[in-house]
């Protein structure tokens, strides 16, 4: 048995030794059918899922980056002619896998409301003001230690039609690729102490309380920049590689 850090070919056998990405523990991810989030009703598979073994297509994945990114993409407060309204915040953290290894060179895409709780999107009708100096979209690539950093504005809460008096807690949407198709993740970052968290069916769709807590950023006084911006740490954990069996090719 050996640890496979990347794919290997067994000489003269046609056999491949590929990394295997750990399955999430039960309750780590939300169920696709989640009664309290009404739109899931018609949009989740009803037939049993078929087990897909992790082979070449699944253990590889898009390594996107440089050609999609400019320096301004990580600073959402400097994408227009003037300063956006609202509380300036630094959102930073580390992307790592469940084995504790940093995930380097991976594209992170984010989107969010402005300070008033309004998205810049044609289908958005919440009667809160748009901010001509804020689009609310960002991109960054993790460094060799898996670290990333955005400068943005504290997003607002907004009403949605899921149930009577439904309001989303403030959040930032995150999309990550990791290094393999198995690691792809879309999630949302929430803020500590948000009074709307207990009432939100999307946040509360995650069965495991400790896993749910992973989506709440941590306020960091150490990383706050005096006279300028507050700071939140949001680490992201993707599926990690497991030890894979190395089968000797027998004559």
């Amino acid at each position, binding site marked *: 048995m050996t640890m496979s850090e990347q794919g290997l070919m067994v000489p003269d056998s046609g056999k491949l030794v590929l990394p295997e990405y*750990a399955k999430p523990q039960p309750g780590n991810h939300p169920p696709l059918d989640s009664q309290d*989030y009404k739109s899931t009703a018609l949009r989740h598979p009803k037939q049993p899922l078929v087990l897909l073994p992790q082979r*070449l297509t699944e*253990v590889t994945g898009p390594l996107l980056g440089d050609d999609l990114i400019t320096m301004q993409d990580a600073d959402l407060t400097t994408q227009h002619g003037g300063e956006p309204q609202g509380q300036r915040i630094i959102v930073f953290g580390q992307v790592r896998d469940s084995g504790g290894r940093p995930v380097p060179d991976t594209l992170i895409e984010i989107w969010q409301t402005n300070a008033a709780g309004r998205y810049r999107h044609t*289908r958005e009708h919440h009667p809160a003001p748009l901010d001509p100096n804020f689009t609310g979209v960002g991109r960054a690539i993790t460094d060799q230690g898996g670290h990333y950093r955005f400068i943005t504005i504290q997003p607002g809460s907004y009403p949605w039609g899921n149930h009577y008096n439904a309001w989303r807690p403030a959040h930032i949407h995150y*999309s990550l690729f990791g290094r393999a198709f198995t690691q792809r993740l879309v999630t949302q970052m929430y803020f500590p102490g948000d009074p709307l968290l207990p009432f939100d069916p999307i946040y509360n769709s995650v069965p495991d309380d400790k896993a749910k807590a992973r989506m709440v950023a941590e306020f960091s006084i150490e990383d706050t920049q005096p006279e300028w911006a507050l700071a939140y740490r949001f680490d992201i*954990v993707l599926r990690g590689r497991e030890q894979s069996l190395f089968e000797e090719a027998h004559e």
Partner: protein
Amino acid sequence: MSELLTPSQTVGPYFAMRLPWPGGPYVVEPETPGAIAILGRLYDGVGDPIPDGLIETWQADPNGRFAHPNDPRGPILDGDRAFRGFGRCPTNHDGSFKIVTLKPGALPFGDGRTQAPHIDVSVFARGMLDRSVTRIYFPDEGAANAADPVLGVVPADRRGTLIAAGGEDGLLRFDIYMQGPDETVFFDL
């Protein structure tokens, strides 16, 4: 031993602010020799089109290889840059999407068997708390499809949901049904 993962959440209704980009649906430029277009629609449980979905595709190059460290064979380069293999297309008001790409080659399963040419697909939408994963197989690969180790474990009466239709003029059709009598086969990855 291992840490809990950051849980998945829905892309919500406003992902189009960030995720699509102009070249996203074009894995290769349409004028590339051998380019194929995969057209489809995404449907919900009552047969209505899903207008706020996102389709992503990931596949091997025409030689069945990946420019990625986890593929020990590596790519066979026949140009300036390796085939990127990734497509991304938001669904339209009528649930439609289009991916322009090259047909992937067959590739090893890893145990001596061969996988038929296929494209892995992630489906995201408002109302989906996690992605749903499916695969596109090709209609002109009857023998390879019949020997494919993954199709082989899909119930026979549902295999057809994974095989694109058409094939003439490089136009393929692959509709995705989240539920209903034609529910697409989705995978547990």
